């Protein structure tokens, strides 16, 4: 069997749990707040979807499973266990298969950590968001810093691999404020950290407030640039260099799952609003599912298929996706691989121009953004993407 391009990226399974206890005002993920969830019913639906995707891809080695949300730490450990049992029965697992679950740092949730571990979860990613109570309130979070730290300690005792998320470039956050907070974060970090600059997303409460002229004191471009640069430097010094635009890890502790996305691997997406990329019979497809939990459940229960019709990706689309995902990585992309996906090489004049102005580095087959280039990656992509 000849190797297909996606195999350079690996194969993963993403499972979306679409419920949260409250909707955070900045968040545009597919999350819903409901009074009660019939977890047994959801279990049947997830298992049925695993069977369906498994029938198409069952011979592949699975490198990663990721429970994302929403708030997957609201799932009963039994539900997580049932899903993982079916996953193991469906795909051969790689030796080091990573199984990550996103968790919110409240006491209710940390109580379930041992159960998740016993179900097979070997990594958690916690949404701590800020190490400052007043900013946590402003971000609409239900937990305090103390609670988050307590939950984090439990996680560290329970799992070998623990990551957490912070959101910075917040309202009125100065360079000095963030330096102190990040220093504290690095002191507590295990092996992985996701540091996101706050993005005002349309369709969220913050989006509406911002459009009305509210949310004063968000950093302007220059400060945002300084905040980003300082973040890279502090993390690097602490031994957790940025391996992707917003992700930092001790070498070897990178998120296996997310690397599949950035390295243009294949992944199946299960659950409402989950996306996937699957190479089948030589063609690559983008998959997605209905956003509304009820609509998705009905589709699975009544049609035996929770997916929307699949979209085939043209060679151009594939090349563009590889480029825009891959250049997020410090290590960049392979030009050969790009060409074999898209059918056309990148414009050598553009490569030369972007190298000349110090935005990218081109060595042998590798093309990567420089540290100056990564902060303005969108501008680089606007140049490089074909018309």
């Amino acid at each position, binding site marked *: 069997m000849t190797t297909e391009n996606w195999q350079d990226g690996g194969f993963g399974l993403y499972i979306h749990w679409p419920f949260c206890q409250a909707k955070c005002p900045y968040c545009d993920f597919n999350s819903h707040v409901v009074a009660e969830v019939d977890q047994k019913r959801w279990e049947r639906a997830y298992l049925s979807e695993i069977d369906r995707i498994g029938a198409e891809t069952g011979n592949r080695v699975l490198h990663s499973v990721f429970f994302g949300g929403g708030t997957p730490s609201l799932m009963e450990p039994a539900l997580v266990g049932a899903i993982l049992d079916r996953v193991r029965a469906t795909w051969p697992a790689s030796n080091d298969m990573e199984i990550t679950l996103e968790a919110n740092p409240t006491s209710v949730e940390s109580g379930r950590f041992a159960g998740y571990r016993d179900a097979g979860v070997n990594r958690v990613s916690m949404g701590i968001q800020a190490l400052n109570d007043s900013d946590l309130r402003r971000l609409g979070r239900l937990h305090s810093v103390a609670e988050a730290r307590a939950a984090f300690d439990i996680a560290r005792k329970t799992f070998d691999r623990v990551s957490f998320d912070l959101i910075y470039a917040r309202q009125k956050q100065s360079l000095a404020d963030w330096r102190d907070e990040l220093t504290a974060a690095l002191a507590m970090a295990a092996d992985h950290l996701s540091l996101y600059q706050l993005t005002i997303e349309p369709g969220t409460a913050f989006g509406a407030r911002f459009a009305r002229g509210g949310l004063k004191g968000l950093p302007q*471009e220059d400060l945002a640039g300084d905040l980003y640069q300082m973040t890279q430097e502090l993390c690097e010094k602490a031994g957790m260099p940025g391996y992707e635009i917003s992700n930092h890890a001790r070498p070897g502790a990178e998120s296996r799952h997310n690397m599949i996305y950035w390295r243009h691997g294949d992944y199946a997406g299960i659950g409402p609003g989950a996306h996937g990329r699957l190479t089948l019979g030589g063609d690559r497809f983008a998959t997605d599912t209905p956003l509304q939990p009820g609509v998705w459940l009905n589709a699975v229960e009544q049609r035996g298929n929770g997916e929307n019709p699949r979209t085939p990706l043209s060679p151009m689309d594939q090349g563009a996706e590889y480029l825009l995902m891959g250049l997020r990585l410090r290590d960049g992309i392979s030009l050969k691989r790009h060409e074999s996906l898209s059918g056309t090489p990148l414009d050598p004049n553009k490569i030369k121009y972007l190298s000349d102005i110090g935005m990218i580095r081109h060595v042998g087959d590798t093309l990567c953004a420089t540290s100056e280039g990564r902060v303005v990656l969108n501008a680089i992509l606007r140049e490089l993407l074909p018309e």
Partner: protein
Amino acid sequence: MTELAYIRNFSIVAHIDHGKSTLADRLIQLTGTVAERDMKEQLLDAMDIERERGITIKANTVRIEYPAKDGHTYVLNLIDTPGHVDFAYEVSRSMRAVEGSLLVVDATQGVEAQTLANVYQAIEANHEIIPVLNKIDLPAADVDRVAEQIEDVIGIDATDAVQISAKTGIGIPDVLEAIVTRLPPPHEGDRNAPLKAMLVDSKYDPYLGVVVIVRIIDGVLKKGQRIRMMKTGGTYDVDKVGVYRPAMVAVDALGPGEIGFLTASIKQVRDTRVGDTITTEKNGCATALPGFKPSIPVVFCGLFPVDSAEFEDLRDAIEKLALNDASFSYEMETSAALGFGFRCGFLGLLHLEVIRDRLEREYGIDLITTAPSVVYNIFMKDGEVRELHNPADMPDMTLVDHIKEPRIKATIMVPDEFLGDVLKLCQDRRGIQLDMTYAGSRAMVVYDLPLNEVVFDFYDRLKSVTKGYASFDYQMIGYREDNLVKMQILVNDEPVDALSTMVHRDRAEGRGRAMVEKLKELIPRHMFKIPIQAAVGGRVVARETLSAMRKDVTAKCYGGDATRKKKLLEKQKAGKKKMRQFGKVEIPQQAFINALKMDD
């Protein structure tokens, strides 16, 4: 056809926004010309741009019928005219086709600069003038004061001014009666004489082709006649004769004193010169009408397609638009940086904006508008005199003896409290005061100003320093020598021809500073820093540096985000197409014209 005695032709004239089009609405409505359900505000302002900006751009003719108190039904032909100074030519032309004017004055504002300008034109056209005081429904209306002003400033009797509210309809019947009793019928007109008709205007209709608006002086115009344009010499078969009500309605014939339209398979706008005399090919009239003073474009700029592949589409669009607007001129132009385009002449900056808007909107072409310029006279050392429409074509200064620039006489009316600001503005723009008089608490100042100081943003500045209370009108008065130089703009060390301007030597530094500062705001940040310089004859007079982009990256991008991200980048890439590349720098299309608007 109607007997002369029962015809009244008039234009509605006023300062901008004093309510001409609204008055036209009421006249149309009260005479039942348009069904109630088809009525809407400023019905005659049919173009999208007119409705959006709330102003009239094109003059419009409508025929209405009014049963007067004397028992006769009169045919009234009204022409609603634009108020903005750029379109003064439309007003003067319209006035040639009629015998009287309704001079509308907003009773809350009083006499303004265009009120005066219109009165002078009406007097020159020998019009009977009926003053109409509008907006009396508003609490701020001061009828007595404004009537007094009309008498003092304009010198016409305002005792019989009709007091109305064009909005609520108060006084409209009085306007109709006044038209019939106070305006004269068409002066002469012999139905049996050879056809003699005035070509008032022409427009382009996508279905009918060129439509010609005519005023019949003598004879009868009928379908099937073979007509001749006396000046251009073209002959045509008349396909259709009709009147505007305001929809086009065909009629059998138009007789003396009447205003209407004809179509005759006319292909080219050059064949329909406004002011021309139309007669029959055989047995035509002997003498032509005097014609109109031609309109002179005073502002020139280059129009280039953002996407150079759209040049032919642009040519097509410009030719079609020119059919509708004889006062706009164009010729092909090439620029090193911008490729093929057109150098176009306009009556003013609003006129320029309107044409550009219509090209973009009605024909879907994205345009780059280069820095507007007036026409300079370049006196070469060898005795040659050149007309310079484009600063980029400025010859080597060592070959130039001297340069003359166009000057205007500007009349500004302003409440006392803002007088100081207005004088300062005029002084800053190299103005020479010619006159200053007072009428009540308003001052009227007259300045001799260089046109190029006025063209771009004078009107905007005047409005802002006087909180909108000043009004302004101008006329060209000739050319005068001054110490003028060409100023170049260098972006990332490369000269951008489309941004070259002519400036007075003493103001080169100030202008240059303002332009580079403006450009620094208008050009988006790039991945590298960009010096922006203004230079005169190789010497840099102002410099700014646009810093490099600091951050443009998406924070989160996981599995589901790839699709969304790709769409977003595609959209941004399309946005880049609206910019033009100069060396490595992309300059947005609006920058070329906005760079010249000064905030002083």
